[in-house]
């Protein structure tokens, strides 16, 4: 047991000292509640050794997260793009400070050698920085001044879609997580993330980073638990505007088509999992260079008209 404790803490303790373990909780509205259901489930490392008992979020926890995300969204979207960029960049600074912890967690959860886990963590932090720099550029790349045939000012610009649910990738527990939750944050969406079912620990640690960052409470909400239990109520929730189905691939008892169908009744924007090389359902290689399409998937183009005249 001493060995696992060591794997999940950054402090180097004397072998005889018994480590102080953490209670893993949800992150909703800037607070760390237990699941209202009182349930937890056991998470192990890649070799099946006990790592933690993690909160098993319920439908009700999911609904609470939607309320928190909705309440926080307008303020986040209302911040200037420059400010959102700074706030997100600050998160990357704090991720850097937790490097060792993330490396240990990624190595344990994904069964990677330390060297590879370090690469994944470095890539995740750099990716966070890449996205942070997009906040005040998206509108320039994705917007347009439209030369209409008449005396009108006509401008189109992207706006956040609103409340976005992210089913985080099942395999890539930090790089995949960062690659899916930051793009919607860039433009001012709030996010409810359903963490990787079997590898949720980096997501919980990330929520601790977010809680001490300048990202307002409720802008990111982290649910741990079973994807098959949490995805359906979130997909059909009327106050959720969009859903990223990345983590529907490889989740037990879930097919992404069913989740997409549940999202249809409220005309949600659905980002499907990208097909694998042979068209199969497979988690993508998250080390590939990101494109702004993931940001744009959670935006709405607004076009404003006004007459010109003296």
């Amino acid at each position, binding site marked *: 047991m001493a060995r696992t404790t060591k794997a999940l803490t950054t402090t180097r303790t004397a072998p005889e000292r018994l480590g102080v373990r953490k209670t893993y909780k949800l992150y909703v509205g800037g607070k760390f509640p237990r699941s209202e259901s009182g349930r937890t489930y056991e998470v192990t490392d890649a070799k099946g050794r006990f790592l933690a008992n993690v909160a098993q979020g319920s439908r009700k926890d999911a609904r609470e997260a939607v309320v928190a995300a909705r309440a926080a969204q307008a303020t986040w979207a209302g911040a200037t793009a420059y400010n959102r960029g700074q706030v997100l960049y600050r998160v990357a600074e704090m991720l850097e400070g937790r490097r060792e912890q993330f490396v240990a967690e990624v190595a344990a959860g994904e069964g990677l050698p330390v060297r590879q886990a370090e690469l994944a963590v470095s890539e995740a932090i750099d990716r966070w920085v890449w996205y942070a720099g997009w906040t005040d550029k998206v509108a320039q790349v994705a917007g*347009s001044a439209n030369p*209409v045939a008449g005396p009108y000012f006509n401008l189109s610009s992207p706006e956040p879609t609103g409340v976005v649910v992210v089913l985080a990738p099942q395999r890539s527990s930090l790089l995949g997580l960062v690659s899916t939750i930051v793009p919607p944050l860039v433009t001012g969406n709030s996010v409810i993330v359903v963490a990787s079912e079997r590898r949720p620990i980096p997501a919980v640690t990330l929520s601790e980073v977010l809680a001490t960052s300048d990202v307002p409470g409720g802008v990111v909400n982290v649910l741990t638990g079973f994807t098959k239990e949490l995805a359906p109520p979130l997909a059909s929730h009327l106050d959720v505007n969009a859903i990223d189905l990345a983590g529907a691939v490889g989740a037990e008892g879930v097919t992404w088509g069913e989740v997409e169908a549940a999202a249809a009744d409220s*005309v949600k924007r659905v980002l*499907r999992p990208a097909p694998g090389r042979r068209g199969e359902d497979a988690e993508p290689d998250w080390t590939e260079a990101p494109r702004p399409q993931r940001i*744009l998937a959670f935006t709405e183009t*607004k076009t404003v008209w006004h007459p010109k005249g003296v």
Partner: protein
Amino acid sequence: MTTTASTAGSPFEYAPAPESRSVVDIASSYGLFVDGEFTPASDSGSFKTVNPATEEVLAEVAEATEEDVDRAVRAARRAQEKVWGPMPGRERAKYLFRIARLLAERSREFAVLETLDNGKPIRESRDVDVPTAAAHFFYYAGWADKLEHAGYGPDPRPHGVAAQVIPWNFPLLMLAWKIAPALATGNTVVLKPAETTPLTALLFADLLRQAELPPGVVNIVTGARATGSALVNHPDVDKIAFTGSTAVGKRIAKEIAGTRKHATLELGGKAANIVFDDAPVDQAIEGIVNGIFFNQGQVCCAGSRLLVQETIAEELVERLKARLGTLRVGDPMDKNTDVGAINSPQQLARITELADAGTAEGATRWSPDCELPSSGYWFAPTLFTGVSAAHRIAREEIFGPVLSVLTFRTPAEAVAKANNIPYGLSAGIWTEKGSRILWMADQLRAGVVWSNTFNRFDPTSPFGGYKESGYGREGGRHGLAPYLIEGSTY
């Protein structure tokens, strides 16, 4: 035929100014346009299309079966792989320019046919529908050989076969919105026009013959809901573009869930047209009238909820009533007509049912004194005052010439009321204060915000909704995205 009570006997009475019907030849029957040829339906089935202003049968039109749809999709696939996809962009561009020019050349024919089949005033089909349709082809023609500069990567690729299902309110214009960007990007098309308005699409097929567009690049399958469903659910369709009701849009989204088909959905709306106490009132009145009575209110982005600042509500409603009294309702072929016929008895029944619900729920109903023609489908311009946000006429899309008037006190209240609805297609703002316009425009959750104007459309300007009004944009550079693999997110 065209009457307005308030002007009868006044010096401003208009003499009839009928457009000539003889400029267009309507065949007694039409087949499906598949692979460059007109063919009957596989089971020889057909339906009638009528002039909604007179109930006269205009033509018999083939009703495409699943087998016919399959034939059309195969033709489109062949044409995409063999001809249209490999064709250099600049050659595709020239075909589209040709189509734009042919539409302009034959504009009067198209305008008359549109008015006969749809019931909209000739003034609108002549001045809006047909010229804007031609402009759409002209705009997207120029994109066909510039796609690598559109912001979707160095070599953006088409999806393949686009299935397009369009509504009856702007039959030719919606056809143009759908076909022009699809062809410009190298997709081929199977298009299903609305059951009640198939004729301009079939005349467009004749225009394609003149343009010498290769067979199979555009296929037109007429029919009703079953035909549309067969098309959307055909396994070899790559991209779906649908304009119509939110209910059908949801069904389509559900049907294609779990497939790799991409979709653009342009669905319903319930736009708030917001008038502040400092608004330019004369312009606002014209904007309100245009917002809800243009095309008999059968417009997804119609300004069907008038939100008036409380201090000017009484005066504005009086002036609005005076203006409605001058609207000329009647013969759509008369060039003086402002408000034409409702497109179908089904639509008339829906408008009637919702307007009756308005009365039953306690709102006050008013219409100008106008005599409606004895045959055809008609609904007088109607105004409801004393409407609360909970009333059905404030929440549901009526798709008819019915305006619900609500009031507000502060800008924040106007925003809250405007946004408190599942739809988010369009909105209007009327005020002389620039900073307020921009603040309001930021707050409104709608894809198109018209300030001190309403119901303006342009091929360069992206159009589409937030929330349950659908997703994807049509028009402008944004309108290319859903037809390109690299541009598609949904």
